[in-house]
């Protein structure tokens, strides 16, 4: 399962929302989740990975999940994206 967002935060994905995304991904022990952007795919369980995407305002990012409860994972991640004012669903 996956969902694509466009970054709307002025600062791109910065430390606070990245922290929230990783903390959320870590809550789901039996699912793997990933972020893909600019041709690079990283695990969402790594804050360095997420920051390494170097996402800025206007960039697209695709979040995906596989494993147990993957729909719940995507829903939780979507909440973070929207509540943090980080991105909007494309």
């Amino acid at each position: 399962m996956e969902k694509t967002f466009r970054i709307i935060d002025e600062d791109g994905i910065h430390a606070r929302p990245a922290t929230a995304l990783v903390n959320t991904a870590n809550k789901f022990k039996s699912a793997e989740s990933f972020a893909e952007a600019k041709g690079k795919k990283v695990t969402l369980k790594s804050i360095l990975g997420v920051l390494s995407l170097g996402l800025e305002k206007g960039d697209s990012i695709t979040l995906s999940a596989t494993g147990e409860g993957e729909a719940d994972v995507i829903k939780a991640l979507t909440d973070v994206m929207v509540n943090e004012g980080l991105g909007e669903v494309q």
Partner: protein
Amino acid sequence: MIKIEGIAASAGVAIAPAFKLEHPDFTVQQRSVSDVAAEVAKLNAALDQSKAELEAIKERTLQELGAKKAEIFEAHLLILNDPELISPVEDMIRNDMVNAEYALNETANQFISMFENMKSAYLQERAADMKDVTKRILIHLLGLNYVNPAEISEEVVVIAEDLTPSDTAQLNRKYVKGFTTNIGGRTSHSAIMARSLEIPAVVGTKEVLAKVNSGDLVIVDGLDGKVIINPTDELVAEYRSKQEKYQLQIEEWKKLRDKASVSADGVHVELAANIGTPNDVAGVLDNGGEGVGLYRTEFLYMGRDKLPTEEIQFNAYKTVLEKMEGKPVVVRTLDIGGDKELPYLDLPKEMNPFLGFRAVRLCLERTDIFRTQLRALLRASVYGNLRIMFPMIATLDEFRQAKALLFEEKEKLVAEGIEVSNEIQLGIMVEIPSTAIIADQFAKEVDFFSIGTNDLIQYTMAADRMNERVSYLYQPYNPAILRLVKMVIDAAHKEGRWVGMCGEMAGDSTAIPLLLGLGLDEFSMSATSILPARSQISKLSKAAMTELAAKALAMQTAAEVVELVNSIEA
């Protein structure tokens, strides 16, 4: 017991155990290891210790400073747990059979350079977080003894080579009772910060760091510029009573808080305060300040990773103006460059930063930055008595350009239907000799002058005030400086303008009689100097000081001037 002399930088007496603030050596050597399992275990132990530390810091920050300030430690904790960092380090230990600190350092450096090469200035700054986390782990791997100043949690006197702005910003006033440094003078950054935090400080001791061990009992006498290490019980008792006496004197001064600043023969002058942030306003009012003579706006730009927005600035200016309840507030526009850097502006290093691209010079080129600040100021102007001052003006043309930009922004705001005060006074800092020399011409175009003595003295004497070897040339009482000050005051008064002074000299008890005599209208100083200055001025006759100043102007050396002033005080 050891006694050391230094420069009294901030008044008061502190008695507490020493805390040595030293930045340790993080050099990492590559070593081969045979027992890789033990090396991985060592890594994990260091990670666990670092996590426990960060959890504690996060908790404390959460309680003392709130959730927002604690967020960064949450991110640091995630880095410590990050599989993208930890797995490569473990792999490297196992595959290359190298020591843990080397593997960590190599891996971390890859992330650091990745961040440093990113396009966004924000992400470039994350390299600093990565470095911070790496250092925390290395401290445990290398067995270093280091406590971050922000983590001090008992009463101490901080001992350091020098304190950087970020060190000082982290000091917790509750626990840091005083500090003393090897280098610096009365006008160095750390000294100015100490006065605004009201922490006793002695700077420029040259050797205190080498002479003291952490935990030694230390007396910092910020009144007379003395540091005593491991004092005798008698001496501790003596200084306790000095501490109490000083406390009583402060109580005496407090009685002058709501009185006007009037000389013995009835002449009123204005005593104002220098501030750096809206938080400093409480101290100004507590100390009976009649205004803010210098609001240094650069602190709004420092300690963050991008330019402050118009809204952030507007809120800060509005807060200061409102809290001052109609008393005048002189806001100095951005004075960055020189020794005050902003990493996110990415300005090239200069050979002579004090003579370089700084303050209004930068603002007139980076008009985007300047216009944002001017708009924020203009919008805030309706909330109090705002006066705007441009720093580092060297030519009339610079003033006219800055003024034109201000008026353009004002017109735009008015066109947008936003209310702007029509009573804003517009002035300049006089800190470059060329401006002092043609003050008569400036006086026709500005509403006021504020003499910035720290820079005026160093530019006139051609001596870097931070350079210990030429610091003897930093001579506020040199007749050359006094004559320049007189030229500026006379030129302004001829055109009916007022003159203030916002350098350290304005609050100096030796300079005050001379400045009163030269006709200075406004004295702006550290808030804590206001009441002593008011007390001093109330005992001086303006008429007598005018004669004194005339004599001083005719003297040949600074030493003669000091002697002259001391003779009247006796």
